[in-house]
């Protein structure tokens, strides 16, 4: 670099090339991922509260006496993650009726899960007299399972809106990306259920 000592600089020339086309991640996907991060943090607090209070109820009913494994509901909810994937694959391939069929199956499976939760709660409240103010078990159980069920409900509402679009033939393969973003939310709700199942029905019992 001898030119530097004389005080004159070489002309800079052209700046380094910028990758073209300039592509960044999709807004919807990043937004949904961040929503999932925030929601995970929300659920984590309820899970921690549940674990913290396991076995600390002063009076019954206790989990071991009244809780039964919700096997059918869990199978339904987890398999709905598969059917929603198949639905999106069908949409991508331009198979509209295949999409509608798998999407409807997803909704029905989610609905079956909710019905299972409803029946479980009915049994707990009516037969076992367990409510949110009964003891710490009731407090933590209904809030954690309830918030999960609330998320399933919100998911079902959104899935139903998409089904209406599908049935009115307004969905095309280019909408596959958007339905996939919605499916991420659904997968998240499923994943939370895996945690809830482990914490409430396995560890907490």
């Amino acid at each position, binding site marked *: 670099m001898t030119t530097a000592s004389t005080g004159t600089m070489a002309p800079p020339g052209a700046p380094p090339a910028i990758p073209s086309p*300039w592509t960044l991640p*999709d*807004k919807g996907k990043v937004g949904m991922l961040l929503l999932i991060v*925030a*929601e995970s943090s929300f659920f984590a607090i309820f899970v921690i509260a549940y674990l913290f209070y396991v076995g600390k109820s*002063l009076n019954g009913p206790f989990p071991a006496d009244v809780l039964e494994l919700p096997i059918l509901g869990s199978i339904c909810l987890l398999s709905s993650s598969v059917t929603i994937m198949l639905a999106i694959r069908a949409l991508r391939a331009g198979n509209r009726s295949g999409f509608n069929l798998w999407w409807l199956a997803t909704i029905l499976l989610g609905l079956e899960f909710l019905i299972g939760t409803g029946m479980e709660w009915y049994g707990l409240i009516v037969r076992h007299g367990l409510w949110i103010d009964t003891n710490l078990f009731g*407090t933590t159980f209904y809030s954690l399972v309830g918030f999960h069920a609330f998320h399933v409900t919100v998911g079902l509402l959104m899935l139903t809106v998409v089904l209406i679009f599908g049935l009115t033939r307004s969905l095309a393969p280019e909408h596959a990306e958007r339905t996939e973003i919605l499916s991420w939310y659904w997968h998240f709700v499923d994943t939370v259920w895996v945690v809830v199942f482990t914490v409430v029905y396995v560890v907490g019992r």
Partner: protein
Amino acid sequence: MTVLEEGIVRPHAAPERASAWGVAHDWVTTVDHKKLGVMYVASALMFFLIAGFEATLIRIQLAVPNNDFLPPDTFNRLFTMHGTTMVFLVGMPMFFGFANYLTPLMIGARDLAFPRMNAFGFWLFLFGGILLYFSFLGGDGLYGAGTAPDVGWFAYAPLTGKAFSRGNSTDYWILGILVSGLGSTGTALNLATTIFTMRCPGMTWSKLPLFVWLMLVDCLLTLVILTPLTAAQVMLLLDRYLGAHFFDTQAGGSAVLWQHFFWFFGHPEVYVLIMPAFAIMNEIVPVFSRKPLFGYPFMVGATVLIGFISLSVWAHHMFVVGLSPAANTFFALSTMAIAVPTGIKIFNWLGTMWGGKIRFAVPMLWCTGFLFSFVIAGLTGVMLAVVPWDWQLSDSYFVVAHFHFVLIGGLLFTLFAAIYYWFPKVSGKMMDERLGKLHFWVFAAGFYLTFVPMHFPGLLGMPRRIYTYEAGRGWDELNLISSLGVAVQLIGLSFFLWNLVRSLLRGEPAGDDPWDAWTLEWSTTSPPPEYNFEQIPVVHSRRPLWDLKHPEDPDWRYE
């Protein structure tokens, strides 16, 4: 050859005249990030004046011993509302206001990723704040009259239980913060998405302005910590309205669990509040030192480290609770560890100023003031991280002095810097330098007069949140000086308000780039048109405007 259009074209906005109704309609229905940013900062300033008024009443009450200026229950309400307001209705909206206005301009975008959600977030925040303040009128208190919350800004259980907090005042605290918190979560998500997905061509992670880097880390931190507060507040509502037992000690619930949940939010929240201060320093110090920022990669690294470590320090608020020695040791060490990346930042700013041609314009004065007061704040912070020291001084005025040094000497100083620095961009007019300097010197003097003496009553055993004290404990003169300092601060503040109004009405025209700065927001008009840039800019370095002004010696040759 690249097909991208080079250079930055300056847009021409035609000024329009509209009726008052039209203007109001325009602002209420807007989804423009700049208007929302201005509304965030304006609402924050309004809440700041209210909280300042509350603080003034508190200091009048504490000026002399055995004072009966305020009844004790009013005193409780005032410190609760002052703290809650400053954290949730001043600090947070200031963060979102500046982030909203500047992020798209700095990354060369036309708006945020989800503009309507942005507007929704702002209105949630504003109405959450109004809901909190409505408690003064509508909060059904113990005597049926309106009352504001009186449980302190961290609302410890079991004080918030139905038995101890009758009426609705605590519910106003829960719901007001919950509503504005949902807005903040949405806006943080929105801003982070914008930074991930809408940077202009050439703006790689290593060319991102540090302001935006800090805002990204800050938004991610907000996302992770604010929903836990929402969750804990929901639990508290369930306790109060459905008879749940989360924090009900009589049914086996735990009051300490609330403290863990609250401070898991509450301490990272302090970093959420102070990161905008760091972000503002990163922009202003280089421009007024006429040098690029010293140690860009270390600044980014330190920021990310602070983000992570801040998630593991919360229980230093709980040393006096009686945690295990192992927990105390862990949280003491993590608290000391977080001082390291913070120290790196201080040295980087000093390194930037070192050898620079420093211009002490008003924004730079505030930033220099920040360096002094923030170092003091940091030092008392490290002192409080020492467990036995904290056992002695927890819940004393030493702690109050410490966090006011952080939030006034740290955050508020840089917020003033930011207002003086970006006011010309937002309004197209300069703020008055002479009034600005008066504001700085008088306010800084008042600040030191109030908060330096406040450390000592704490050391002498004065607990926080007492509404009065008896004479002759050695606290009298110190408290009187603190209260007199508030009067000085108020005088300083009035220079600021006068400056703001006067400059808005007849400030000198600013032009596009009054500070000869280097980031993209200065390349467009002042104020910028609704679409920000006529052409999406292309950048090649961290200082795109330097490259444009000095084509013979562009930055990208060195980066």
